[in-house]
């Protein structure tokens, strides 16, 4: 299954996504959790610490830094740049704005 979670700010998107991901993982599903918010906080709801959440570098940024000629497969990207979260979830941040004028 591929689920996207949307809604007004503060309504609980992140909490719902994080908790659902963990419950599914506990049932034995292989879960990939992607934070697509430019202000990514999913790490906190999935059970990572503040420091770990803050350290997550976006895939986009990592790919920009890497040699674009050798863009790896989706799986490889997750392996290399994702983080292992509680209950075996593979988690990654898609895009984070760290600079005023990102390319």
């Amino acid at each position, binding site marked *: 299954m591929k689920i996207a979670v949307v809604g*007004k700010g503060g309504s609980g998107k992140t909490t719902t996504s994080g908790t659902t991901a963990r419950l599914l993982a506990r049932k034995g599903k292989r879960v990939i959790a992607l934070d697509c918010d430019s*202000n990514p906080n999913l790490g*906190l709801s999935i059970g990572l610490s*503040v420091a770990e959440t803050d350290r997550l570098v976006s895939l986009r940024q990592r790919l920009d830094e890497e040699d674009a000629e050798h863009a790896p497969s989706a799986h490889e990207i997750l392996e290399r740049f994702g983080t292992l979260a509680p209950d075996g979830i593979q988690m990654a941040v898609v895009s984070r704005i760290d*600079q005023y*004028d990102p390319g």
Partner: protein
Amino acid sequence: MRIAVVGKGGTGKSVISGTLARVLARRGHKVLAMDVDTMPGLAFSLGLANQTGGILPEEMAEKQEKKGWKLKKGTRINTLVSKYSQVAADGVRYLQLGKLPDKLKPGSTMAFWYVLQRFKRNGWDMFADLAAGTRQPFSGWANSAEMLLLVIEPSAKSVLSVRRLAKLAQWPKRKRKKIPPEPPQVMLVANKLRSQDDLVLIQQGTKDLDLPIVAEIPFDSELAVGEQLGKALLDHRPNAAAVRTIEKLANFLVEKTSNGLVQNKGESK
């Protein structure tokens, strides 16, 4: 004054900007409250049900020499503000520039904002309620404010968000337009405080940012009831402690920003 309000979703940006706008309007200020969020919610805090928005592209002219839009010759900014804004509670003028009807292209509305920046001394106090998150606020809107209010609530997520926003606000290599010449002053507004511990959490989490907390707004469960009904804080709970705190914040803004003057002496150009 030109104030932009940013923060994590649900922290109270709209309620705070809407209430500030109305408090100042009641004191005789000419206030323009702009919702620049693609999910506009400011109208509720201004007692409006209707949220139509945008400036029609034909009001603006495309620049010939370079990319972009400008105000059509002979058009006055005050005319456009009157034409496209709605009169909200307490006489606040409300402009919705975030979510546009399908036929409107964002270009002309964004351009209108750039035009608005130049009308620093036309007597309006301007409040911009910006989108949640970090992407939109800093691709234009937040940079033209003279003061940036970062709304923070006592939660790890909100603290983390404010840390990111503060960093973006200080970003040294911003391609700033010449107007305004100064980068915005950045201040924290603490909201939904239930206890001293809540304040301490915020203070600890933002200590190294060295940003002043200019308002400590207490949590009010009645506010949630107002939200359920879609009623503005000022109408639903006019005597709430939160309102008192926002009134004090309004005093502070008048003191610390330019043009904090009551404009009753006729229209300026």
